């Protein structure tokens, strides 16, 4: 612990990693809450995996990976959103196709790129210890974009998430706000890929809000608590992984998953206790 604090004061990359974790937590708590209450987990998984296409293409053309990630995430979100609005009955099959197709395109471009392919692991499982100052700035911008959109359209997002048909009857453009919400999910996925990689994104997007939902009683409360939890998981994960030199992204996810299990067990016990005294 003291070693970690010592290292934190001397190593720039650790400071960057911590800030990256905190920045990702904002998007994770706010948008993750919508993912959980509107049950968009599978869609978010599809978007996250399809991002590999963008990362591969960006790598092949020697462009910044985050640029490719943002573009691929947006295209995947719009495609998946359009599919789920138009083809209700085959939604899962079609999302799976976008999911796998995105990954396949990414693998092809990465295979055709000369040089070593060590980056692939970083895309899949995160490279939080290599986040640059410039990337932090971009992450902050994405956060700002997400927060502005959610503050401006809080009512509409709530209505669309809660009761789409009623929202439509009140004259809300539900399809527009559904698509906008998916675009925000896409931006959040990009934020989180920096931290835990695209395979583990879905864990950070769903675990903190799910834990929070058991304790907070409003959508705003869940957003706030989920952001705090996510900040604790990323910070805790980085600290735990530092000394034994473990992969930070995987440690963060295991920590979040462990807390979810403990929280669920505690709630069960408490409820069981009530039943016992009754």
């Amino acid at each position, binding site marked *: 612990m003291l070693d970690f604090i010592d290292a934190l004061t001397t190593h720039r990359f650790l400071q960057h990693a911590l800030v990256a974790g905190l920045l990702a937590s904002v998007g994770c708590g706010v948008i993750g809450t919508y993912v959980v209450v509107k049950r968009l987990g599978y869609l978010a998984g599809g978007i996250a995996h399809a991002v590999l296409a963008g990362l591969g293409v960006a790598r092949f053309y020697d462009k910044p990976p985050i640029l490719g990630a943002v573009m691929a995430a947006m295209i995947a979100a719009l495609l998946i959103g359009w599919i789920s609005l138009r083809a209700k009955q085959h939604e899962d099959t079609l999302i799976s196709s976008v999911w796998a197709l995105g990954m396949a395109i990414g693998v092809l471009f990465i295979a055709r790129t000369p040089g070593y392919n060590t980056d692939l692991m970083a895309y899949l499982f995160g490279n939080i210890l290599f986040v640059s100052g410039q990337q932090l700035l971009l992450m902050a911008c994405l956060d700002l974009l997400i927060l502005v959109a959610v503050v401006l359209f809080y*009512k*509409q997002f709530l209505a669309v998430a809660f009761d789409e048909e009623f929202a439509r*009857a*009140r*004259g809300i453009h539900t399809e527009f706000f559904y698509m906008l919400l998916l675009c925000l999910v896409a931006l959040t996925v990009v934020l989180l890929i920096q931290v835990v990689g695209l395979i583990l994104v879905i864990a950070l997007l769903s675990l903190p809000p799910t834990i929070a939902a058991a304790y907070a009683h409003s959508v705003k409360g869940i957003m706030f608590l989920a952001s705090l939890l996510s900040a604790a998981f990323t910070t805790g994960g980085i600290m735990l992984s530092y000394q034994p030199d473990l992969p930070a992204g995987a440690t963060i996810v295991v920590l979040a998953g462990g807390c979810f299990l403990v929280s669920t067990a505690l709630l069960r016990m408490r409820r069981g206790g009530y039943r016992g005294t009754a």
Partner: protein
Amino acid sequence: MNEVQITFEQVSFSYGGPPVLERVNLEIRSGEFLGVVGPNAGGKTTLLKLMLGLLKPSSGKITVLGKTAAKGRQLIGYCPQHVTFARDFPLCVEEAVMLGRLGKTQPLGGYRKEDRGIVEQALAATELLPVRKQRLETLSGGQLQRVLVGRALASQPEILVLDEPTANIDLRMEEDIFDLLKKLNRRLTIVVVSHDIGFISGYVTRVACLNRTLFCHYPSELTSDAIERLYRRHVSLIEHLH
């Protein structure tokens, strides 16, 4: 005679297969309490969705307060069947009723002070003030139904449209809800879909029997002949006095 608020002229509709509604003509006047009854899949919910502009007729014309359905629906308070949302959604009574202000309040940011006053009235009218801070999942079926009515009232409608408001609640609660609707009927036109023809006949001023085609009756004219034509089988009418 009171003014006509909603008209259906020769309206037909299908979801792509056989027609769900065929040449429906209907005029609803202000102050009416119209009960729409009929068998399952007889087109009751479809009729409401057309009224709200959520569906477009295959042929025929619908007007709501002199406008198209999509424009006129701003003046309709809509209570869907409460299966359209998840019971465990993290929302309290007050927040749910507040959503009725959508379309009336400012589009960006939070609600205005004026909205809170209107919601206060809607909560009072539906007797929800004591449970205003409670989560939806803690409510009884009757309370939840009153939340939906409250949410519809918060949009300050001229017409209240309810889809099976008593489908999931017990008989005593059913009476509570209809007593509330009767009270609201003093200032609002009410259209209510129900499968329970016997029960609603004590409350409504007119009954529309819908099974692909539509016939209207006044409650006193409801004979077993009319009901048999609707359900296409023998139905026994049990006389019941309130």
